[in-house]
């Protein structure tokens, strides 16, 4: 019964989504108030029914209703309750439903916080979001219904993929999706602007906070995914350039470019058609990511739904959405562009370079991701493009970008005199050269070209990012301090520096050893002594495990014990490695159990990873910068004004 209610709620949500997608757009076109007024109630109604559907599926999971096929396939009686809940989005059908919930939630947020938008414009934005929702609801109902029954019901389920039975992965997809789907708002703003034929600086000001919010969720989501891969996949890597990772990374790169290009459009009214194109691209890449992941078109360790019928549906949907948007772009964008000049040495130039380099990086990642597919389609065999290619290809645009960040941040709009700029940047440059050039070698005892370049770039970005906040702290009383937008930018760029430093140090100074250890045996890796004390069997709620006890000491002093596990999940009979990690701010010690080698000996992977925490810390600091910038006063002024207007004067609020 509950499952049928859920199914029915999805059908009702689709009906409302059709109203929300068609009527307001028609109304905006004909300037018909009553049709435009459908937008907000329809969005709200759709949200309610989508939530009902989601609640029904969650209920089925928590009560282990194995007569629902999706539950039977992805849950099990002995599964801990938290994973029963996170199993809702543990596979294709449910994660699609999660996608719809989040899209609907973004729509509600837009309809709530953008009431100061011109009526026709707001109706168009909500209408476009409604059309997107139609596509995803149809996809769910036609090809991937999570409420399909399984009669007779099995006594127990097939269990959730053990890789996903982890707190990191329980929260990673929702956060990532909030970011992914959030770009649909920028997309809808772009389409609405092209439909109306108006794109002014106010448009950019409305679009900016939405873009920044989705970007920062995407940042956190990607960082969580990387952290999960690090401790759960058992190899100690933090980024694998896997197609599914790339699928989330490409919209991030395009979104980063969009944030910077929107700045130019808001402040100077330039780059208009370019900004529109980036808004379309960022969301298109999110959709493309979905397509790549769900169609089974590319092989990946992450791919979890491979079904050509679904692939064909997404491809058609993709063709309509992206093709339609780009056709509209070709038709309307030329009229929107305005020509205004700027000098070669100006902030506009640096932001243009930023965009060019980020787009190059996006294109290279896209090319590397699609190359295996292209080669196969051309019948030239199967190839796989590996991390070494991506690392080089990605570094080429990124290293210059890091150095340009520092220049761009302190260059004025329109035109900038060279001498004052150089004077400002003298101190950070000296800091970067001294600290970045010497510190890694002094600490880790080895110099290298890549380390030096990476560390100089990192300290350059960090020290440049501090200029404005420091100046604001030391300003004379009564003068205006740094704005939130500028402070957010400084913080985000400081995060980029931290991240760069982490990546540089980890890549250069990681020590790895794959060894055979028997109980009682000791080895030394990177100055730490690892002793395998014992191995014992354990029984978990839904798995059996072999646990090793490894004592770690440095210079003869015991510093801790790690207990890596090798688990076998009972239902799926799949082995899983639970690494033991001893974390501290300046290094991780990472121990993973491999396979038995006979005579009580086990293969063990030991790793010393200096500064790896900076990678995720850097990403979090970037996201924090995004929060600060998106809460800038000028995005809230209108909202406050609106609330005042809503309260008739003379009456108590």
């Amino acid at each position: 019964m509950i499952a049928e209610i859920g199914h029915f709620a999805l059908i009702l949500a689709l009906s409302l989504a059709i109203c929300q997608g068609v009527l307001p757009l028609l109304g905006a076109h004909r300037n018909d108030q009553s049709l435009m007024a459908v937008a907000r109630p329809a969005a709200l109604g759709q949200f309610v029914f989508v939530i009902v559907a989601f609640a029904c599926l969650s209920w089925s999971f928590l009560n282990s209703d194995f007569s629902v096929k999706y539950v039977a396939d992805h849950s099990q009686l002995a599964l801990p309750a938290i994973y029963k809940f996170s199993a809702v989005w543990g596979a294709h059908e449910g994660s699609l439903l999660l996608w719809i919930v989040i899209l609907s939630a973004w729509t509600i947020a837009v309809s709530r916080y953008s009431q100061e938008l011109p009526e026709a414009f707001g109706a168009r934005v909500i209408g476009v979001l409604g059309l997107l929702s139609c596509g995803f609801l149809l996809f769910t109902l036609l090809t991937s219904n999570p409420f399909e029954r399984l009669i007779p019901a099995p006594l127990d389920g097939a269990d959730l993929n053990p890789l996903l039975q982890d707190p990191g992965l329980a929260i990673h997809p929702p956060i990532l999706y909030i970011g992914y789907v959030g770009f649909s708002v920028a997309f809808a703003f772009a389409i609405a602007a092209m439909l109306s034929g108006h794109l002014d600086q106010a448009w950019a000001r409305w679009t900016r906070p939405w873009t920044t919010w989705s970007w920062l969720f995407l940042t956190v989501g990607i960082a969580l995914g990387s952290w999960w891969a690090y401790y759960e996949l058992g190899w100690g890597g933090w980024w694998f350039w896997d197609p599914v990772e790339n699928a989330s990374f490409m919209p991030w790169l395009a979104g980063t470019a969009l944030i910077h290009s929107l700045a130019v459009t808001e402040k100077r009214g330039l780059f208009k058609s370019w900004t529109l194109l980036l808004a379309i691209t960022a969301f298109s890449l999110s959709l493309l990511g979905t397509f790549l992941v769900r169609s089974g078109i590319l092989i990946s360790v992450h791919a979890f739904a491979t079904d050509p019928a679904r692939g064909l549906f997404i491809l058609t949907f993709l063709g309509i959405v992206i093709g339609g948007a780009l056709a509209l772009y070709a038709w309307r964008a030329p009229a929107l562009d305005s020509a205004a000049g700027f000098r070669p040495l100006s902030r506009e130039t640096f932001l243009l370079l930023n965009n060019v380099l980020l787009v190059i990086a996006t294109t290279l990642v896209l090319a590397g991701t699609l190359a295996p597919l292209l080669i196969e389609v051309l019948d030239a065999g199967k190839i796989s493009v590996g991390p070494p290619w991506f690392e080089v290809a990605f570094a080429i645009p990124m290293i210059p970008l890091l150095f340009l960040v520092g220049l761009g941040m302190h260059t004025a709009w329109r035109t900038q005199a060279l001498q004052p700029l150089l004077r400002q940047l003298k101190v950070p440059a000296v800091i970067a050269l001294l600290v970045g050039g010497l510190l890694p070698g002094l600490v880790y005892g080895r110099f290298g070209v890549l380390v030096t370049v990476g560390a100089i770039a990192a300290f350059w970005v960090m020290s440049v990012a501090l200029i404005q906040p420091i100046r604001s702290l030391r300003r004379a009383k009564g003068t205006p301090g740094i704005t939130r937008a500028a402070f957010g930018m400084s913080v985000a760029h400081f995060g980029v520096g931290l991240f760069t430093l982490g990546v540089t140090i980890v890549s250069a100074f990681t020590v790895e050893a794959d060894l055979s250890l028997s109980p009682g045996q000791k080895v030394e890796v990177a100055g730490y002594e690892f002793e395998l004390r014992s191995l014992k069997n354990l029984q978990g709620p839904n798995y059996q495990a072999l646990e090793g006890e490894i004592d770690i000491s440095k210079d003869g002093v015991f510093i801790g014990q790690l207990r890596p596990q090798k688990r076998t999940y009972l239902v799926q009979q799949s082995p899983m490695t639970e690494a033991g990690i001893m974390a501290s701010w300046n290094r991780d010690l990472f121990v993973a159990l491999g396979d038995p080698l006979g005579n009580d000996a086990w293969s063990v992977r030991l790793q010393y990873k200096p500064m790896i925490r900076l990678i995720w810390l850097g990403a979090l600091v970037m996201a924090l910068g995004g929060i600060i910038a998106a809460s800038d006063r000028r995005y809230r002024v209108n909202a406050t004004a609106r609330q005042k207007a809503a309260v008739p004067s003379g009456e108590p609020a």
Partner: protein
Amino acid sequence: MLRYLAPIIVFAIMIPVFLIGLNRDPTELPSPYIGKTGPQFELPRLLDAQQTVGSADYAGNIALINVWATWCVGCRQEHGFLLKLAAKNDLSIYGINWRDRREDAVSWLDQLGNPYVASGFDADGRVGIDWGVYGAPETFLIDADGTVLYKHISPLNQAVWDEEFVPRIQAARGESR
């Protein structure tokens, strides 16, 4: 004008690539040995570690080499079909018990039945690497002269057998007559 049209042109070119890619089977991974002689191997027998089984055993006959393990769900799925195939006595099936525990594998054969003439015990996956095994189950069809005729990834069933294996076996037998 072209600069506004360029995005949609690029996108239009990508669509057919996806469309063709969609109709490809991503599990169809080529084996470098198709049409060539498979690698030589010799492994201790699963049921009798004193004896060995290897490429010498099947020389001169058309044979199947089935890579299996007790931890692999797909192997359990195809096991019934392998037993049926073995009962027909049409061609010999050799097993490579891959990255497994000996006692688990022995009790698996005890419980479910043994379709194999013999299984080699490849605990460390060394022979699997030589043969380019991606994951279990994988099945190789070997000609009388040791040539690899076909490789199938994922569980065997009647449909796959009739479509992919039978024609190749018939062709191979026709040639040798």
